[in-house]
């Protein structure tokens, strides 16, 4: 029998299979196996997981890895290192690259980079429309064949509802989910933050929640019409969450994610023009943030997705109006989620972890996010109590545009395993 890795004495939580006990996990040949023979155990590599939680590796439906074309912000190596440091073993990357991922060639380029440099599993998405320009459909079938797991226009929203209807019908034929960033540009109108009290005070152009709500409505209606699965990215608005809640109760094939930052922060954080709180959709009112927590508790929101969006310090260190949108998130997502949901006693630990493991995996039919026998040995160990305060040099990511700099988090990943190999160990990436 080949080499066994024995993870001993941790609190094993496998939310999908409702497992939560202090026990052992055995790995061999990249898979989770049942308890092996005593001879194998005697020769096994052991990992002491006492006092730690052993969880399926986290699954992230929304990262920006900037390959091809913007590797000054992040590379596949640095991005997946960040993922591993954050306990993520499978990530889905967005197609708003340079050039955008609207041809089989670009998808292949990404896959080649992944094969060469990646620390964790990476699943690419492809554009809905050519160049994400919103004018004509990209070749969805060919993109699926090249390896795309879903289609999305990245940070853009296809404004033409007639074309969105065709995109949904067509993608549905291939069982490809359509992932949408919901924004009506005529309402968001170049806003740089939420339209509300803070934008009124600061004189910054505001984007109202209605810009999101109207497109969420549109997507719900088109999903109902076509039967296509439309997945709503980074919901931020109470109204949008209500629309999704009602749609789900009618059986519409819609799913939704939220980012850790929208879950933890409101527009008040923008009051001193800190560009590490500038994102799209913007941080909304405190009431919208509470609606997010309610939506996570009642199941309206299916999962948490990091939205990891690296930008260099010189790109972010400018006047608020000119800073690009987005923050890095992979390395702080677990701590932020634990802070907001588990340590605050809203949800128990298995439920909290389900939002980062099998629930996101299910949305894109990825066979990930569990610890059952025969599953890929993608798992991570973390200390739910360990406190840490990120600094700008704390990250594996090439970029450091994090809203969590100088803010306390409680919960840190100690080890991450991908396909049975340890790739991250207490702050260090291990490369084979």
């Amino acid at each position, binding site marked *: 029998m080949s080499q066994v890795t024995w993870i001993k004495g941790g609190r094993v939580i496998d939310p999908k299979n409702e497992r939560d006990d202090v026990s052992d996990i055995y790995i061999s040949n990249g898979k989770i196996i049942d308890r092996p023979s005593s001879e194998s155990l005697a020769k096994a590599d052991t990992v002491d997981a006492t006092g730690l939680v052993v969880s399926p590796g986290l699954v992230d439906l929304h990262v920006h890895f900037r390959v091809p074309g913007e590797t000054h912000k992040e590379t596949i190596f640095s991005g997946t290192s960040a993922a591993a440091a954050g306990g993520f073993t499978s990530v889905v990357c967005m197609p708003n690259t340079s050039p955008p991922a609207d041809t089989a060639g670009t998808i292949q380029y990404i896959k080649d980079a992944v094969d060469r440099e990646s620390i964790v599993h990476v699943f690419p998405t492809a554009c809905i429309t050519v160049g994400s320009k919103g004018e004509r459909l990209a070749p969805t079938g060919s993109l699926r064949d090249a390896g795309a797991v879903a289609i999305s226009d990245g940070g853009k929203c296809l404004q033409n509802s007639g074309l969105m209807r065709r995109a949904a019908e067509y993608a549905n034929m291939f069982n490809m989910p359509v992932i949408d960033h919901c924004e009506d540009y005529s309402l968001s*109108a*170049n806003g740089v933050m939420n339209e*509300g*009290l803070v934008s*009124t*005070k*600061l*004189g*910054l152009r505001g984007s109202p929640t209605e810009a999101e709500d109207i497109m969420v409505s549109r997507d719900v209606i088109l999903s109902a019409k076509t039967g296509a699965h439309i997945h709503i990215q980074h919901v931020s608005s109470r109204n949008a969450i209500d629309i999704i809640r009602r749609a789900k109760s009618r059986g519409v094939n819609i799913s939704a994610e939220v980012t850790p930052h929208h879950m933890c922060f409101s527009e008040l954080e923008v009051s*001193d*023009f800190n560009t590490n709180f500038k994102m799209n959709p913007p941080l909304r009112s405190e009431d919208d943030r509470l609606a997010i927590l309610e939506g996570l508790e009642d199941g309206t929101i299916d999962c948490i997705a990091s939205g990891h969006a690296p930008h260099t310090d*010189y790109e972010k*260190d*400018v*006047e*608020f*109006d*000119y800073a690009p949108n987005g923050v890095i998130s992979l390395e702080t997502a677990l701590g932020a989620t634990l802070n907001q949901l588990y340590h605050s006693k809203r949800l128990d630990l298995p439920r909290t972890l389900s939002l980062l493991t099998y629930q996101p995996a299910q949305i894109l039919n990825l066979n990930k996010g569990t610890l059952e026998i025969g599953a890929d040995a993608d798992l991570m160990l973390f200390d739910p109590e360990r406190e840490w305060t990120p600094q700008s040099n704390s990250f594996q990511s090439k970029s450091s545009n994090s809203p969590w700099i100088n803010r306390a988090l409680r919960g840190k990943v100690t080890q991450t395993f991908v396909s049975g190999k340890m790739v991250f160990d207490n702050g260090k990436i291990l490369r084979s």
Partner: protein
Amino acid sequence: MPWFRKDLISTEELSPEEIQTVFKTTAAFKKILGRKTAKTPSLRGKTVVNLFFENSTRTRVAFEMAATKLSADVMSLDMKTSSTSKGETLRDTVENIHALAADMIVIRHSAPGSAAYISKVLDIPVLNAGDGAHEHPTQALLDCFTLHEKFGSLKGLKIAILGDILYSRVARSNLWAMTKLGAEVTLVGPATLVPREFEQFGVTVSHDLKSALADKDAVMLLRIQHERQNASAFPSINEYTRMFGLNKTRLSWLKENAVIMHPGPINRGVEIDSELADSPQSVILEQVTNGLATRMACLYLCSGGKAEALTG
């Protein structure tokens, strides 16, 4: 109350006592300006650099004049011809200017927060001459000083600010300063330019001109900020003037000796009838004159000058 700030970024962060200190200092400089040799050596040997990324007549000339009258050396840069057109960032620009021995910077820029941003980057005084729609503190200080001179105090004074509030830094800076000094402020204009959110800041919001102007001691007109708006805020200039422009009839709704104010520049015949701008009730040019003494005061205080040293 002594002034400890190296920068002047907003009126929102000032205390009422700090505003009174500015008034005291402004009054002292106004007296000095009335003398034959209208100059003081307060900033001799210092170089003040005006960085104006947006157009300006009053504010730029006032700051230049103010620095000159304080015996500083002044440089006024029209940033349209600067290397920002070659992609240089604001941060790099000001750090370079600081490296060229600037002692104080006065900045006007279209991005809200830009003045605060560079005040953190530099260790020399930074004065905000207008940052997008956010704040224009010296304007509000001169406006309130004008009212203070006219009425003795702003406490209980009923003031209407009429026009494009949403895109106005003058409206924002004034509402903070005026409410801190105890005035009752009403913001009035079309619903698309005067959102209700402003009510949270201790002012009244109105879209009905007659009730808003009734019985007011002062009305401040604001120009339509075309350069900041997008197209759909209201139908046309003509419509705006018909519905919200200040004319003789509307002026009569205010108190009998009410004052007409305007930060300038005026678009005659749009937000205000031409003849009203020149009427005896208008204090528009007094505002401008007070603007010189106010900016002398602000430069003086931010450079570490003491109000007591002037008044004795």
